[in-house]
């Protein structure tokens, strides 16, 4: 290096440094902007922005426990949780014994985003709980390409959704902006693993209460 002409050598080096730093900054700015909450994004039925863009059931009830569930449809532990506690939670919803908020996070990859978008579409059809169940019952391994929008559209039939509006909503990713808002709200709520369950704003005990039906029930009733 030392025998090259100093001027030329420094010019190349500085140019390279400028290009590297410049490219990284140019990539960083849109990334930062995309993480901002987009308040004009379309939101599905029964979603409340005040409740962290979650899908809410029994919002109007007073004096009942508030159960908030943060989940990612691709997360295997979430599928176990759904299998063990899903029926109980749905029974609380139908008996109007609790307010339940589903926060569909999407940090496991692109197919989580597809699934969260499709779940939002099912909420518009009034079939969120059935579709939620169908997704977990048919959960593939993470990001193996199984959950394309075509497959997610067909999966609607398992929840009794047959309308054209559902498949077009899934294929057009109508709720992509909402999915990203829900993810940002999960980040603000300091959710560091899935599933995470808050009851009346407090996380239940990770060691004992998630995967024991009796203890989970006790935690809900304790409020």
């Amino acid at each position: 290096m030392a025998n090259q002409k100093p001027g030329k050598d420094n010019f190349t080096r500085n140019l390279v440094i400028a290009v590297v730093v410049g490219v990284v900054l140019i990539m960083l700015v849109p990334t930062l902007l995309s993480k901002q909450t987009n308040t004009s994004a379309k939101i599905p039925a029964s979603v409340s922005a005040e409740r962290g863009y979650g899908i809410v059931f029994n919002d109007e009830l007073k004096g009942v426990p508030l159960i908030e569930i943060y989940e990612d449809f691709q997360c295997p532990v979430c599928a176990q949780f759904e299998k063990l506690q899903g029926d109980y939670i749905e029974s609380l919803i139908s008996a109007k014994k609790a307010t339940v908020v589903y926060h569909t996070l999407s940090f496991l990859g692109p197919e989580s985003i597809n699934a969260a978008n499709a779940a939002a579409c099912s909420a518009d059809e009034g079939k969120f709980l059935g579709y939620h169940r169908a997704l977990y019952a048919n959960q593939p391994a993470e990001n193996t390409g199984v959950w394309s929008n075509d497959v997610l559209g067909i999966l609607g039939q398992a929840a009794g959704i047959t309308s054209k509006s559902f498949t077009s909503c899934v294929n057009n990713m109508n709720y992509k902006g909402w999915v990203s808002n829900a993810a940002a709200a999960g980040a603000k709520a300091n959710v560091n693993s899935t599933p995470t369950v808050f009851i009346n704003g407090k996380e239940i005990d990770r060691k004992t209460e998630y995967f024991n039906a009796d203890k989970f029930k006790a935690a809900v009733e304790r409020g």
Partner: protein
Amino acid sequence: MKKFLPWIGLLSRLILGGVLLAAGLLKYQHLDKSQMAVRAYEMLPIALANFLGIILPFLEIAVGVLLVIGAAVRISAIVGGVLMGAFMIGIAQAWARGLSIDCGCFGGGGQVEPGTANYLPELLRDGGLALLAIYLFRYPQSKFGLDRHKTDGDQSNG
């Protein structure tokens, strides 16, 4: 001995730069997860942790590329060394406080099952990389780099 120094420098650059570049690219693919990884250390206010989770992969990529191509080696080595120092502090405090987290060093991150976290190899690896950064700060001259060095080899404009 002197004539081997540039080769050691090249090796150090490629290892430290390559690791940073790989770590940055893996985090860049899942920025939500990267934010989660930083939050899980429970050291920073949530908003700051979320911001850092986005910035960090970009910083690692930039420093990694500069080290691999050998431009601004001395400054890059300082940044790389400071990053490794910060990672070691983060991992050590998580260990000391008994947190069960994935270090999120190469993507991933967040809480893990209690008892499955394994902090010692991560600390040793980051310690080794920090030593490479210190070496490059002290002897920034290396083979096939873009930085120009005075013939006595000890000074650098990086």
